[in-house]
């Protein structure tokens, strides 16, 4: 999605608890998100809970520190919801499935943890763009478990050790960019 210069009027309206804006999000974005959740091991009520929590967290974040959106408002809210659902799915995978029912939490601790995760996600994505394209692609392949011999060939390294060194340097560079960003201190 193309970058947006201004920050969104919809966020301002949401901050005021504007029911029309919330309704519009339920009419236009929620059906799409519910479809996404259903395709990804969830139910309609899971989608409802996640959507509710995502909107609440977004508003809380905007109230306390402000939110800078660099895509379209809808695409942004969809990403926030998607990340929250993936977090929930990961949590479920870890849990022993004694019961078939999972209850999504609506408590302060959980909301704060999710907000921080989303903010870190945005910061890391932003800093990844600052890396060279080669570093980005290398890290992507490495963390997607592409075998070393394939990485060596693809990126023309002499040895597997040289590839590992490069991954190490790229990750270090990324960590440096993140640490130098003023936002990071409040997220760790």
């Amino acid at each position: 999605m193309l970058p947006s210069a201004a920050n969104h009027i919809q966020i301002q309206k949401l901050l005021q608890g504007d029911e029309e804006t919330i309704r519009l999000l339920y009419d236009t974005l929620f059906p799409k998100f519910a479809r996404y959740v259903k395709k990804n091991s969830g139910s309609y009520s899971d989608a409802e809970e996640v959507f509710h929590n995502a909107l609440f967290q977004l508003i809380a974040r905007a109230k306390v520190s402000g939110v800078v959106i660099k895509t379209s408002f809808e695409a942004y809210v969809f990403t926030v919801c998607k990340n929250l659902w993936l977090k929930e799915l990961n949590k479920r995978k870890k849990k022993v499935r004694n019961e078939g029912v999972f209850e999504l939490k609506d408590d302060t601790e959980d909301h704060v943890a999710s907000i921080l995760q989303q903010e870190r996600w945005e910061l890391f994505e932003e800093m990844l763009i600052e890396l060279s394209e080669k570093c980005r692609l290398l890290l992507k392949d490495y963390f997607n478990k592409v075998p070393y011999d394939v990485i060596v060939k693809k990126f023309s390294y002499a040895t597997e050790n040289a590839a590992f060194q490069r991954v190490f340097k790229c990750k270090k560079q990324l960590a440096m960019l993140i640490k130098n960003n003023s936002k990071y201190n409040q997220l760790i």
Partner: protein
Amino acid sequence: MNDELQLKVEQYISGSMSASDALDFEKLMETDAALKAEVTLAKQLNFHLSGTTDDSEVPNNEYTQNLKSFMESEEAKELKETLRTVQSERRVPKFRSKKRRIIFAAAAAVVIFLISAIGLIFKTEPGTEKLYAQYYSTNDLPSVIQRGTSNSLLKQGAVAFQNENFSDALAYFEQYDASTEEPDMALYLYKGATLLELGNYYGAIQEFELAIDSQSIDASKGFWFKAMAYLKSGDVSNAKYVLSDIASHVWYYNHDKAKELLKKLD
């Protein structure tokens, strides 16, 4: 931090350190806050890069305290209530049996028929149809002619669409949709335009939203078609909402037309 220590951090978080070295490393972390922060960040980066969930502890700092204070305020409680009210208002009704679904579908068909019939006599938005006819153009759809043979279903669908054989077009697009995992903006736009012709506004809007979300270079065409769908359905308020979004982004498709149309709708 030097490379040697950084390497130790990586070995520690990947679990490749021996048990006794890991124990020593943990002791070191207890007294060295900067090292502990490095380990936390390295872990968070691994989670991020491998697409898994970062389950770091919530830090106790001014920012998290402010978040908590807000969340426990009266204002936040009221906000939650508003969100829940809209949620239940917009909830899709659940049906216990197939029979009830059929009854509901039949009732909905009767209502739609009545609304259409009344609409023919009393048009609530007299200018909407005219504006739709003036601004909607299938020329805004992308060309699929130059595409490879792998997309022949898309091409066949586009041909059927051009020949106004919309049911066949929809069947081709559905088939193509089922055969591909990759997002395809052209498919979403054509499928949406077909549904629009068939009077399925809700379905059309869903497809245009997928086009917007496709990350394609001209994904903003989705906004234009979405606005057109709202306009055709007579939902002027939503049409204006989407058009305002186009009007506030100069690089969005049909930006000027959106501004012009907005003026006419006001």
